[in-house]
């Protein structure tokens, strides 16, 4: 029986994009469903009653929620190609640690840059954001990917934020390339992969989206 895979998603979400990258890495076909977060579908509410959030992966009718949990699930089920997590337990723990760091820090700090009016909160957000990226850059070191020689779990967790970089830079008035050149080189390297370039949104469209949302919330 062929696998039935459905992804409940929204196009600007860096969390949804992670799942798309993982599915593409494994060469999987799936049905993509765009959700309207102002008017959530009965299917979304049924499949993620706890958080009512995207992304949700529905595999043969059964839901999996939380983007990096979904990515790990995809990696375990379709283990025939492109392993995302290493096999060694210590390296796996390190990968989980850094993906968890991205999850704990980047989105919430980035929000301070985009969704607040100019002022102390935004400045603090910008400083913290740059610090996080610099720490990640140090962790990358001289490796081509966070996974070492191969694109992996941590790369998936972080690369989808890169299409939001232009938006962070624009509202925060800073250049990520100036602050973290190695990290930008890494994003370019990742974008050479079909699985990444086909899954990430256009940075200018993201900027337009953010601008629209800011107007909606009366920030702009």
């Amino acid at each position: 029986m062929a696998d039935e895979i459905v992804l409940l998603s929204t196009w600007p979400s860096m969390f949804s994009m992670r799942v798309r990258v993982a599915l593409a890495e494994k060469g999987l076909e799936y049905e993509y469903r765009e959700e309207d977060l102002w008017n959530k579908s009965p299917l979304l509410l049924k499949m993620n009653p706890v958080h009512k959030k995207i992304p949700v992966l529905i595999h043969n009718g059964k839901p999996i929620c939380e983007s990096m949990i979904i990515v790990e699930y995809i990696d375990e089920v379709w283990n025939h190609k492109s392993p995302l997590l290493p096999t060694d337990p210590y390296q796996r723990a390190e990968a989980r640690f850094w993906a968890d760091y991205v999850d704990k820090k980047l989105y919430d700090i980035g929000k301070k840059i985009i969704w607040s009016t100019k002022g102390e909160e935004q400045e603090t957000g910008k400083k913290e954001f740059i610090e996080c990226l610099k720490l990640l850059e140090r962790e990358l070191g001289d490796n081509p990917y966070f996974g070492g020689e191969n694109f992996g779990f941590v790369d998936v967790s972080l690369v989808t934020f890169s299409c939001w970089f232009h938006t962070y830079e624009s509202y925060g008035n800073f250049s990520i390339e100036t602050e973290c050149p190695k990290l930008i080189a890494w994003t370019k390297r990742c974008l050479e992969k079909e699985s990444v370039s086909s899954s990430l949104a256009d940075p200018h469209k993201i900027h337009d989206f953010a601008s629209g949302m800011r107007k909606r919330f009366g920030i702009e």
Partner: protein
Amino acid sequence: MSKQELLLLDCGVSPFCGRVRIALAEKGVEYESKEENVLGGKSELLLSSNPVYKKVPVLLHNGKPLCESSIIVQYIDEAWPSPPLLPTSPYERAQARFWGDFIEKKLFDGGSKIWKSKGEEIEVAKKEFIETLKQLEGTLGDKDFFGGENFGFVDILLIPLTTWFYAYEKFGDFKVEEECPKFSTWVKRCNQRENVVKALPEPEMVYEVVLMLRKMHGVE
């Protein structure tokens, strides 16, 4: 095989450290424990082993540090596969990780709001906390443990947090047993296990610590 060196940077009342103590006991693995003075003065070893968060628990395995309790428990499960703490099927593993993540997001911070708040805020915090427990009750259902017939990953992540419930009950003026009887039954079932009882502090001791924390936070 040469003797493996395991050192846990530990803190008696920390439910996060409790998780690691239980997991190691479940696997029958011997280790050394070093109690950290988390409020007074963290050791050089802790600061150098966990430079990102500077928190306990840290498990040093042959000198290599592992941080973040949920990640450490998964590492222990992979490094010592028997008895398994996570289920075998990828879907059930994803569900276990989901509920582990839910517990992480909601429970400790939610409970902390009860003892940190004053006046009406306490009622709000209490309601949210009970709601969280009811959601966990829902997923437990009629099973003996969150892992099904066997004590497992979600049980290990959750049971140490319950040692803080006595303190929440005192400050929130409620009883978990009255609000969530099925949850209470599960707590009692876990507390019949030797590995759990030996690893966890008495709730009265935790209450004394919370009293001290309240003073530090200026709540009383």
